[in-house]
C-alpha cells in the first residue's frame, strides 16, 4: 500500500515543480519579514476622548535627551506628570499603573524605568492630585525614524499617551545587542538568548509528531480505514505489533521528557519564579505649598474658533508678583508670548507658542485676588481633536496653568471644570 502510494505521489509531483514551489514559498515568507516602512503618523491617541486626555494625566517638562541615536546607543525620556484631581468617573483610578513607551514595536528597548527614584519594571500605584517624576532609559534597536511617546497604562483606563517626538535611529538592527549580567555573574545577549535551542526543541518534537501521524496515515490512509471501520473490522486495524511500537514510542517520549527535565534542572540549577507584584509607596514630588490658587468661575468652548475661554479668580499669596505663562493639557502646550519670549524646545505639533492670551496681562501682585479670563486658542486644539470636548457626555476640561515670577519661579496650578460649547462663530462667554 505504502509503495503504491509513494509511486502515485511521485508521479504527481515533478521534482522541478516541487523545487520551484519550495523556493516560491521561502521567498514569499521572507518577503513578509522585510524591514517595514517608517511610520508617518502618531499613535492613535487622537481617537481618545478629550476628557480622558485632559483630565487624567497632565504631562509636563517632557524631555528627550536625544532625537538622533545610533543602534545600541541609549537615550533618556524624562518628565513629570500631574495626576488630575478631578479624575473622570468613567476611568478607573490609577491604583495600578505602568510606565510605558508609545512606539511602533520595540524599536527602542526599555533598559530602565523610574518613577521618582524608584525603579519601576512592574506596575505601581499613583495618588490622585499628586505629581510624579519619571525617567525612561531607552536603547536604540531598529533603524528608522519613529515617533516615541511617554505613556502610562492605567488598569481599567487603558493607555494614556503623553507627548511624542520623532527619534531617528541610525545603523542596523542586525548589530543590536542586549547584554545582561545574570546573578551568577555571567553575561548573555538577551536579544538572541536561547532562541536556537528553542527552535531545535520545538521543531524536533513537531517533526516527531509528523512522523507519528504519517506512519499511521500511510499504513492504510483515511478512506480505506473508514471503510474497514464501517465494515465492522475496526478492532482488526491496529495490530499487536503496532501496539508494541506505540508502547515503545511512548516510552521513548517519556524518557526524552524525563531526560530533558533533568538536564534543564542540572543546566540551570538556580531558577526563580517570575517576579510580580504591585509597587506601592512611591513618593510623589515634594512640591512646596502652592502660593497661587485659581478658582474656576465658568468657561466655554467656541467650536468654530477652536477657542477655550476660562474665567478664573486668581489669588497670589506668595511674595512675588506672578504672570500666567502656560496652559498645558493632553500633552499640548499653549504659551503666553508675553512670558515666553523665546520658543522652548518641544515637538512642534504640540507647541502653540502663541496659544494663550490673558485678559489682563499686568502681573498679579502678592496678596492680590483678581478675576481674569484666559483664552486658549490654536488649530492644534482641533488637530489633536480636543475640540470633541463639546461632544463628551461630561463636558469638562482640565489642565495645568503655570504662573511665573520675575525671579523665574514657576508655580503650577490645576484648573478644570465644565465648559459650555458655543457653536456660533463670535459667541462670547
Amino acid at each position, binding site marked *: 500500500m505504502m509503495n503504491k502510494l509513494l509511486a502515485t505521489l511521485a508521479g504527481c509531483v515533478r521534482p522541478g515543480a516541487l523545487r520551484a514551489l519550495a523556493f516560491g514559498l521561502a521567498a514569499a515568507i521572507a518577503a513578509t519579514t522585510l524591514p517595514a516602512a517608517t511610520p508617518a503618523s502618531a499613535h492613535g491617541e487622537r481617537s481618545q476622548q478629550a476628557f480622558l486626555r485632559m483630565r487624567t494625566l497632565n504631562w509636563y517638562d517632557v524631555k528627550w535627551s536625544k532625537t538622533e541615536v545610533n543602534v545600541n546607543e541609549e537615550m533618556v525620556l524624562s518628565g513629570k506628570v500631574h495626576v488630575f484631581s478631578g479624575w473622570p468617573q468613567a476611568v478607573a483610578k490609577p491604583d495600578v499603573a505602568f510606565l510605558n513607551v508609545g512606539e511602533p514595536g520595540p524599536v527602542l528597548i526599555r533598559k530602565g524605568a523610574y518613577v521618582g527614584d524608584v525603579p519601576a519594571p512592574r506596575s505601581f500605584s499613583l495618588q490622585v492630585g499628586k505629581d510624579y517624576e519619571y525617567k525612561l532609559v531607552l536603547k536604540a534597536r531598529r533603524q528608522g525614524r519613529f515617533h516615541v511617546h511617554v505613556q502610562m497604562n492605567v488598569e481599567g483606563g487603558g493607555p494614556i499617551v503623553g507627548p511624542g517626538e520623532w527619534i531617528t535611529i541610525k545603523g542596523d538592527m542586525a548589530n543590536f545587542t542586549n547584554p545582561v549580567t545574570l546573578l551568577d555573574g555571567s553575561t548573555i545577549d538577551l536579544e538572541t538568548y536561547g532562541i536556537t535551542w528553542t527552535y531545535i*526543541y520545538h521543531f524536533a518534537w513537531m517533526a516527531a509528531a509528523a512522523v*507519528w501521524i504519517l506512519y*499511521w*496515515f500511510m499504513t492504510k490512509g483515511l478512506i480505506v480505514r473508514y471503510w474497514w471501520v464501517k465494515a465492522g473490522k475496526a478492532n482488526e486495524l491496529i495490530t499487536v505489533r503496532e501496539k508494541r511500537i506505540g508502547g515503545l514510542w511512548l516510552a521513548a517520549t517519556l524518557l526524552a521528557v524525563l531526560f530533558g527535565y533533568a538536564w534543564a534542572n542540572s543546566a540551570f540549577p538556580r531558577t526563580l519564579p517570575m517576579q510580580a507584584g504591585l509597587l506601592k509607596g512611591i513618593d510623589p514630588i515634594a512640591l512646596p505649598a502652592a502660593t497661587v490658587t485659581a478658582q474656576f468661575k465658568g468657561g466655554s468652548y467656541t467650536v468654530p474658533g477652536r477657542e477655550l475661554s476660562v474665567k478664573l479668580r486668581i489669588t497670589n499669596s506668595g511674595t512675588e508678583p506672578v504672570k500666567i505663562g502656560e496652559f498645558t493639557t493632553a500633552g499640548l502646550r499653549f504659551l503666553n508670548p508675553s512670558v515666553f519670549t523665546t520658543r522652548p524646545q518641544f515637538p512642534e505639533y504640540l507647541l502653540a507658542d502663541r496659544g494663550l492670551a490673558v485678559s489682563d496681562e499686568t502681573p498679579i501682585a502678592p496678596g492680590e485676588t483678581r478675576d481674569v479670563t484666559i483664552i486658549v486658542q490654536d488649530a492644534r486644539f482641533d488637530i489633536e481633536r480636543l475640540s470633541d470636548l463639546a461632544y463628551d457626555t461630561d463636558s469638562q476640561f482640565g489642565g495645568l496653568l503655570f504662573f511665573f515670577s520675575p525671579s523665574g519661579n514657576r508655580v503650577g496650578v490645576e484648573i478644570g471644570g465644565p465648559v459650555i460649547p458655543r457653536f456660533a462663530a463670535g459667541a462670547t462667554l
Partner: protein
Amino acid sequence: MSISTEAGAPAGKAWKSKEEFLGCVMLTDWILLVVLFAVVLGSFHIHYMLLAGDWDFWIDFKDRRMWPTVAPIVAMCFAAAVQSFLWQKFRLPIGATVACLALLTGEWINRYDNFWGWTFFPINLVFPSALIPMGFWLDVVLMMSGSWLVTALVGSMGWGLLFYPINWPVLAQYHQSAEIDGVLLTLADLIGFNYVRTGTPEYIRMVERGTLRTFGKDVVPVAAFFSSFISMLIYFLWWKIGTWFTNTKYIEVDDI
C-alpha cells in the same frame, strides 16, 4: 434536462477500473488529510488563542500557576474532539497529536512571520507552549486501552502533569535571574520589560502574584494536578462534542 453526462437511468458504475479507483483513493486521502489538518488548525488555533493565548504569546505570562493550569485544559478540548473522530471513524490513534501539531504549526508560522517579522519581537519573547509529547501520551493511552473512558482518566492525568516538564527544558533558561537597578527579575520578566509592548502593560499579566499559603514552593504540581482533573472533565465533554460533530444527519429542506 439533466446535466448528467451518461444518458439513461442512474445505473452503471462509478469507476472504470480498479486502478482508477485505487489511484483516486490514494490521492484523495492526501487531500482529506490536508482538509482535516487545516480545519483543525484554524478552529483549534482561534479557540486556543482566545482562551489561553496570552499565556502562549508571551514568555512573561508563562508562570507556574495560571499557565500550567489553563493551557492544558484549553488544549484538551480539541485533543479529545479530534481523537473522538479519528478513533471512532478511522481507528487512528493520532487525534491528539494531529491537534497539537496543527496548533503548533499555525502558532509557529505566526510567531515567526508576524511577531518577529512584522513587529520585531524576538522569538524568545513569543515562542508557543510545547504540547507534542502530551499528544503522544494521550494517543498511545487510547491505542493501548482502546477505551475513551480510560483515556479520560489516565490520559488526562498525564496530559496535565506532563505539560510543565515538557516546557521546562526551554523555559528554565529564562528563569535565571538578574538584578536590574536593585530589582530582582527573571530573564522572562526582563524580556517582557525590555521589549516594549505599547498595548500590553505589565499589570495585564495573569500570573502568580503570591498566594496566601502554598505547600512550600510546590506551586506547579498543585496547578498540574488541578489542571489534570479539569482536563478529565473536559475530555469527557469534548469526546462527546467531537462525536456529535461526526453526526451524519440530514434535515428536511422545509425545516429550515
